[in-house]
Structures are given as structure tokens and as C-alpha cells.
């Protein structure tokens, strides 16, 4: 089977890969580039564990073909911290126990960061609806929602 050559940008770096036409972006990230921070919980768009940003829009990496990334820009959990410096959401997820098993955490962090960049002062309801496509089975969402709201307040204070 001949494979497709793709040149793209991932977390700011130029990346090239070969993929089959049917490979999803998630397959490529995980199996070829060893960027396993994006998780596969369903491969059908239902769980959000594979959430990444594609040209500035949140998408499920399992619902994008690897070939579609040509010439575009992909942001994953691996690019969220700046060097040693964690994003305030990452720091607070640890400190406020917003994760239990942590499998949903990368997707939720990527989605929450996108929300706070669009809306620095979301209501609880807005956070809940924004994250409705990110399933978490461990926490009951309580500490996740609180942490996003508290981080938003902290970031507004710092800004």
C-alpha cells in the first residue's frame, strides 16, 4: 500500500511523516510519533480523550485523517507546558486534585486551555457545556469544573 507523505507543524515544530489514507491523526500521533499523551478512549468522537487543536480549533484527533494535517498546525498536550513551566491549568489540576486516573486529563486540559483563551471568564455552565465532549468516569467532574473556574480567576488576576 503506498503511503502519503505529510508535512505539518506539531507543537510549533516541523514534522514529516508517512501515513496510510485511513490512518487518523490520532493513529499517527500515537503510533508513529510516539506522542501518546493524546489518548484513545473510543475512536469515535465520543470521549474527547484525543482532543487536540488543529489550526486553532479543538477537534478529536480520532476524527481527523493523518493526511488532512498537511500544511496545518497541530497542538497536543505535549506542547502545553513551556519548557519546565507548566500551564496554570496543569499546575492547578495537580494541586487541586482534578484528576484521579488521569486518562481524561490531557484531553480536558487541551480543551480547557482553548476555552480560557476564548473566554477568560466563563460561567460554571459554560465550562460544563464546553467540556461535555470530554468524558471523565472517575471524578464526577466536580473538581475539574472547579479547577477550571479557579484557574480562570487566577489567570484574570495575573493578567
Amino acid at each position: 500500500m503506498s503511503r502519503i507523505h505529510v508535512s505539518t507543524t506539531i507543537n510549533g515544530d516541523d514534522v514529516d511523516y508517512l501515513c496510510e489514507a485511513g490512518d487518523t491523526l490520532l493513529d499517527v500521533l500515537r503510533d508513529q510519533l510516539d506522542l501518546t499523551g493524546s489518548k484513545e478512549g473510543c475512536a469515535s468522537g465520543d470521549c474527547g480523550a484525543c482532543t487536540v487543536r488543529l489550526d486553532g480549533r479543538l477537534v478529536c484527533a480520532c476524527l481527523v485523517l493523518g493526511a488532512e494535517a498537511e500544511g496545518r498546525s497541530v497542538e497536543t498536550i505535549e506542547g502545553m507546558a513551556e519548557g519546565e513551566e507548566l500551564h496554570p491549568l496543569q499546575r492547578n489540576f495537580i494541586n487541586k486534585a482534578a484528576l484521579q486516573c488521569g486518562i481524561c486529563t490531557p484531553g480536558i486540559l487541551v480543551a480547557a486551555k482553548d476555552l480560557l483563551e476564548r473566554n477568560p471568564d466563563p460561567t460554571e455552565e459554560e465550562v460544563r457545556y464546553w467540556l461535555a465532549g470530554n468524558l471523565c468516569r472517575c471524578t464526577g467532574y466536580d473538581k475539574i469544573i472547579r479547577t477550571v473556574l479557579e484557574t480562570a480567576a487566577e489567570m484574570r488576576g495575573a493578567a
Partner: protein
Amino acid sequence: MKFETPQTVEQAVALLAADSGARVLAGGTDLLVRLRAGHIAPSAIVDIKHIDGMGEITQQADGGWRIGAGVPCAAMGEHAGLVADYPGVVEGAELIGSTQVQGRCTMVGNLCNAGPAGDSVPALVAAGAMVRVAGPNGTRDVPVLHIPTAPGKTSLAKGEFVTSVYLPPRGARGGDAYLRFIPRTEMDIAVVGCAVNVILEEDGTVACAGVALGAVAPTVLLVAEAAEALIGTKCDDAALAACAAAATAAATPIDDKRGTVAFRKDVSGVLARRAAKLAYVRAKGD
């Protein structure tokens, strides 16, 4: 399987016409799910998003709106002009999936997937929207209502694909609304969906109306009796009750994992009444 990225409508049509196993890719939120599940095995995937205009929302000279077949539903909600004219259409489009799905899914994909429960379709039908279809014989404009013919089937011929959706000029005193019933608050497929579009006389009487139901028949239903119940009224309780009764009567649902026949018929009426009320309030602008 091949992956194609045509740059023009003509190239896309040529690819689709040459290969009956080729499939159009818009947002991929239906296509890729079915591909991964092994339900389909296309010979080629034709990504139409590189074609000029596919990602654009433009107001036409007549005041109507043209929405490209590649426009992700999230972009519709971000378009203030469109939201002001067609809140119901945007509502339907924005109910599809999650934030992440919104970043990719399109109304045209929703329509051409031809699922009975597509959320963006009833409001388009209630508004009398048209789609532009490109094919080997040029382009044609088709009412949205006529695209789906059965679950999973469309009236598109070989080599044809939809390039855009057209919404008629809103004019003064028009309003629409879409409501759906799902068991959760998000991430479910509609058990019943109902869109109502109304245009009012100056005195607030309904001049014309469209009522469309989703998920209660093999394809979207345009319920003329429900619309007639509203026309000539000010959407008072009696008119709303008549509209609800007509919607319940028109629904021909099935029992499945998402709901029962009795439930879907009842809820068709409930949603018709609630959507009509909301559309009316929006049309009056108060």
C-alpha cells in the same frame, strides 16, 4: 484507499464521477466513525475543503445567506449576522456533537449523511433552505427537503456533491427555533427534533410558517398541518395546542434503543409547541 484533495469543483466532480467507490469528506465526523467501524470501505476519500469558497459564509445580494459545504458548525455560531437572522438554524447546527465535533462537522455532511435524526436539517427545511449541487452536468439548486430519500440515502446522482446551502432572506419579523429531546444534556442523537420558522404580519399574526420534525420518520418531515395551525394566529395557546396535535399526528416513529413510538409521538407535540412559541417570540423581536 486513496486520499484526494481537489482544488476546484470541477476536479472534485471528475474524481467522484470516475470512481463510484469514492466518498466526499467534509468534517469527517460521520465518515471517519464509519470507516473505523468497518461499515464502509471507500476506494477514495475526496476532501472538498480545499476548494475555494467551501469555508465561507456570505450574505447574498438578496439578503439571503450562502454557507459553504466545508463550514464547520462552530463557525456558524461565531457569525453574528447569521445568528441574528437564523437563530434556529444555528441552534440546530450547534447542537451537533461536542465542542470538538463542532470544530469539524458541517451542515451539509449532516444532511448528506441522511440520518433521520440529523439536528441541523429540520431548521433548514422549516426555513425553506436550498442546496447547490454540482455534478457532471453542471449545477442545480435543490430544496433541502429533497436531498435525503431514506436513512443513509440521498437523491444525489453519481458524481454529484453539495457545494453550499442557501437560506432565503430573513426579512423583517421572521424568527425560527430548533429544539431537540435527548436523554442527557449533550452528546446524544436526537430522540425527537423540531424546528419552527415563522414570518409575521405587521400586527403579529403569523403570515407563513414551517414546522419540521426530525427522528420520527425515515427522513425529516415537513408538517404542513402543524404550520397551518399557526398561520393566521398569534400563537395563542389554542394555536399552539393545534400545532402540537398536528405534529404528534404526523410523526411515524419507530421503537428503538433511543425511544419508543409513544414517547416520540408525545414529545413531537411538546417540542412543536415549545419551538413555535420560541420562534414566535424571536420573530416579534421582544
